[in-house]
């Protein structure tokens, strides 16, 4: 514990300790009773080395000494007052500014104080300056750490924290003393512990590693951080590892906002298409219903005519006049037409209602809000849903062929995956539209299969393909080839984030100019945290 406290001190910015030692050294070098360092605007670090003298009195002497404001070395062998002897050298910054003085003094007068002794004082003054410079660097370093939301640390060979920068308190809101001396792995969430210990243990010289993990706190939510660790070379200095913890909270918030933008963009575009998909059946269901109301009216008239004839002639056959009435009513109702059209109007209306209902159902399933935890979902069902939702985007440019093999339920964030599938479908449709394809020639093939321990989902189109030179750029955020206003280039970046980061899978692109593009998503069936 005491070791860790000393080490933690060396990260501090308070000057006192180091200057005290240098003042003592100066007094010894000059064989004087008193040595001190005075800094402009910061006061004194005083040391008296003669046991016979009263330290309080000596300190008062230093305080009052005119030497503290020196700009050139000065030696006074016999001042006649108190102190009788005094010598000092200015503390000079690199730019020539005088920032203080290193001084020595005696109560007794001296016979001589030669150049060698003045040179020794000047050498010590330079040491004081390098201390100051070191402190300055530390302060800068600390300011940078604070601004970047970072914490510097060092662990010993056992992985225990031996040094920790003060920004730790800013990051966690907790005192450093609670963390120093403890293994770093104890401070991260249980899920990250194994990985963090492994990272700190076998680091060879010059190696460095990075890992995203979360810091747990006694109170408050865990903090997502990036942990970067490098090994220290074995030698005279500290051993073990040094590293930086970077606060990822802001970055995560930004990523979420961007992901949200991408989702909104896709949804905005979809909702226009869905409005159309709903408006169409509503139009003909409305028309058919109006027709049915009219048809009912005509039929009713006809029925009433029949009834009138029946009432009057219960026992005898209808008269000629009645036959004519019936014929006129039948002609008005156009029975042949009604009997052909009414069933068809009813069937089409029911079909239209079914279309709207299934679309609304798909919308509900599609926009299913993911819980934070993953849950088991049927990928084939999800793909069918997404194709329904995106129908208006694809239906004029391609036939969508579903080639879905039996796949086991997958533990996943299905809402996020739906979004990925949607982006791929919309991209394929856009590519086909640009190519001027239509239903007869355009094709989007969506397939699923199991390959080893992975579920493989592919979305392939037969549009123009993606030029080789941009194939590795398509997953970069904000990369887009679409015209302004058509896309912001976040779709595939989001897709990779979802597949890669959230599911431990891969998404790759195979494309050949003139033939088409195929996106292949591999999702491990037994991803991290799944018990086999």
């Amino acid at each position, binding site marked *: 514990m005491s070791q860790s406290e000393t080490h933690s001190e060396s990260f501090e910015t308070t000057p006192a300790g180091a200057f005290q030692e240098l003042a003592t050294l100066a007094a010894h070098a000059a064989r004087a009773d008193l040595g001190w360092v005075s800094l402009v605007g910061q006061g004194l670090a005083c040391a008296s080395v003669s046991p016979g003298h009263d330290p309080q009195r000596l300190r008062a002497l230093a305080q009052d000494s005119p030497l503290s404001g020196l700009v050139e070395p000065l030696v006074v062998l016999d001042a006649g007052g108190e102190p009788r002897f005094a010598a000092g050298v200015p503390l000079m910054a690199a730019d020539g500014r005088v920032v203080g003085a290193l001084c020595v003094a005696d109560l007794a007068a001296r016979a001589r104080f030669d150049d060698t002794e003045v040179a020794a004082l000047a050498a010590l003054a330079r040491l004081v300056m390098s201390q100051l410079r070191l402190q300055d660097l530390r302060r800068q370093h600390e300011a940078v750490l604070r601004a970047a939301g970072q914490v510097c640390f060092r662990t010993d060979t056992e992985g225990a924290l031996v040094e920790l920068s003060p920004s730790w308190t800013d990051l966690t809101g907790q005192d450093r003393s609670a963390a120093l001396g403890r293994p770093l792995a104890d401070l991260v969430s249980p899920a990250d512990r194994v990985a963090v210990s492994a990272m700190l243990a076998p680091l060879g010289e010059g190696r460095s590693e990075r890992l995203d993990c979360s810091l747990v706190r006694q109170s408050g939510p865990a903090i997502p951080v990036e942990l970067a660790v490098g090994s220290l070379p074995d030698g005279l200095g500290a051993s073990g590892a040094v590293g930086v913890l970077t606060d990822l909270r802001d970055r995560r918030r930004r990523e979420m906002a961007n992901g949200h933008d991408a989702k909104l963009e896709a949804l905005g575009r979809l909702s226009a298409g869905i409005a159309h998909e709903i*408006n*169409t059946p509503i*139009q*003909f269901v409305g028309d058919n219903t109006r*027709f049915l109301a*009219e048809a009912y009216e005509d039929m009713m008239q006809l029925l009433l005519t029949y009834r009138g004839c029946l009432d009057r002639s219960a026992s005898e056959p209808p008269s000629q006049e009645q036959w004519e009435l019936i014929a006129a009513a039948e002609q008005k109702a156009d029975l042949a037409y009604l009997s052909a059209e009414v069933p068809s109007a009813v069937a089409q209306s029911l079909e239209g209602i079914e279309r709207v209902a299934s679309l609304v159902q798909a919308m509900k399933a599609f926009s299913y809000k993911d819980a934070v935890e993953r849950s088991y979902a049927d990928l084939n069902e999800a793909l069918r849903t997404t194709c329904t939702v995106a129908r208006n985007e694809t239906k004029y440019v391609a036939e969508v062929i579903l080639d879905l093999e039996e796949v086991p339920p997958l533990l996943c964030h299905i809402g996020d995956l739906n979004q990925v599938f949607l982006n791929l479908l919309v991209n394929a449709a856009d590519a086909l539209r640009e190519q001027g394809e239509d239903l007869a020639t355009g094709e989007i093939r969506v397939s699923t299969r199991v390959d080893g321990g992975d579920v493989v989902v592919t979305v392939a189109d037969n549009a123009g393909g993606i030029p080789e030179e941009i194939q590795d750029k398509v997953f970069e955020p904000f990369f887009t080839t679409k015209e302004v206003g058509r896309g912001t280039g976040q779709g595939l970046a989001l897709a990779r984030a979802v597949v890669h980061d959230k599911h431990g899978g891969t998404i790759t692109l195979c494309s050949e100019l003139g033939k088409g593009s195929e996106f292949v998503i591999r999702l491990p069936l037994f991803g991290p945290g799944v018990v086999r």
Partner: protein
Amino acid sequence: MRKPAVLFVDDEASILDGIRRSLRGRRHDWDMEFLTSGAAALEHLSHTPCDVVVSDMRMPGMDGAELLAHICRRHPGVARVVLSGHTEREAAVRASVVGHRFLNKPCEGDALSELVEQLTSGMDDPCGAELRRNAGSVRCLPVLPEQMQRVAASLAAPDIELGAVIEAVVNSIGLAAKLLQLANSSFFGSSQRVTSVTHAVTSLGLPTLQALIATDPGLWAADITDPAELTQLTAVWRHSIASARLVRELASPGNAPYSEVAALLQDVGRLAPLSASWREEDAGRPAAVHSDQVGADLLHLWGLPRPIVVAVAERYLPKDDYPYGLGVSGALRAANLLLQGTECADPYDTTHESELGRLLAHPQLVAADCDWRLRAQRVAAEAAEALA
């Protein structure tokens, strides 16, 4: 006399079945044809006369905008109606430059049959077909480049000032006419009659206006090279704008909005021959007939409120008596005759002193206690200055 013929085009057969059934009551009044593709529609039109075509916008192969553009060129006498379920602005703006009227899917009960009724009325007039061919071919009315620049500049200002936008639109008569056409269709979200340019701009929204003028600059171009023609046209413009300013004061409060729009748009018939679609396809076009009547028919086709259409149609028609107040037509006639003595006179008309005297003696104008001739001079001077 043949029955009015109506053609419906939609790639969705169920839509056509629904329309066919719901319009069954009109089967004795109209010849109706239902086709599922643009190509089939063009083929049909090539051998069968037709008065109104109602088309979906989004269709595989030839889409609605393309089909209507073809019909505009080959069969300008056919009134073009867009029936679309689309909600994006982009699609709406594309439709707006090829269609005469716009209906939303789903459209309300009798809206479709009422619309067809309106568009086929008056077709038995002997010169009706000729007029319709002339009016029907107009997609956009030309706007002078500097007028369009003024509109664009007012929209590009860092702090957009609605007043400045509206003034710029009013002075670009062709644009004002298009905005009133669109604002009067439910397609663009308005369910009420729109009778002023201000109302049109606010109900369509500035983004739609922006999209509209950006859609295809060629559509709006008034490429007038002949200086005599330009002088003539500028005079027409000046007259319309002065008349709109003056009639606002002459008309009764209830009729003022209609009168103002009628005055502003009274000469769209003279702009029509300069429109891009007239110039690009001259072959087979009959010589322009009665440009004042073409203007009225154009406004009718575009769905402007009836009092406006009637006032424009009657603006050269002298009337002896206005027993029930001036109305829109009387107010417009009075404004035009007053302006004949000013720098904003109608270059195609002469003075009608005795008729003007009778109009100025009308109780509605006497009651205003105003020297209308002097007022007309002032308004004309202001309008000329505003346009300079």
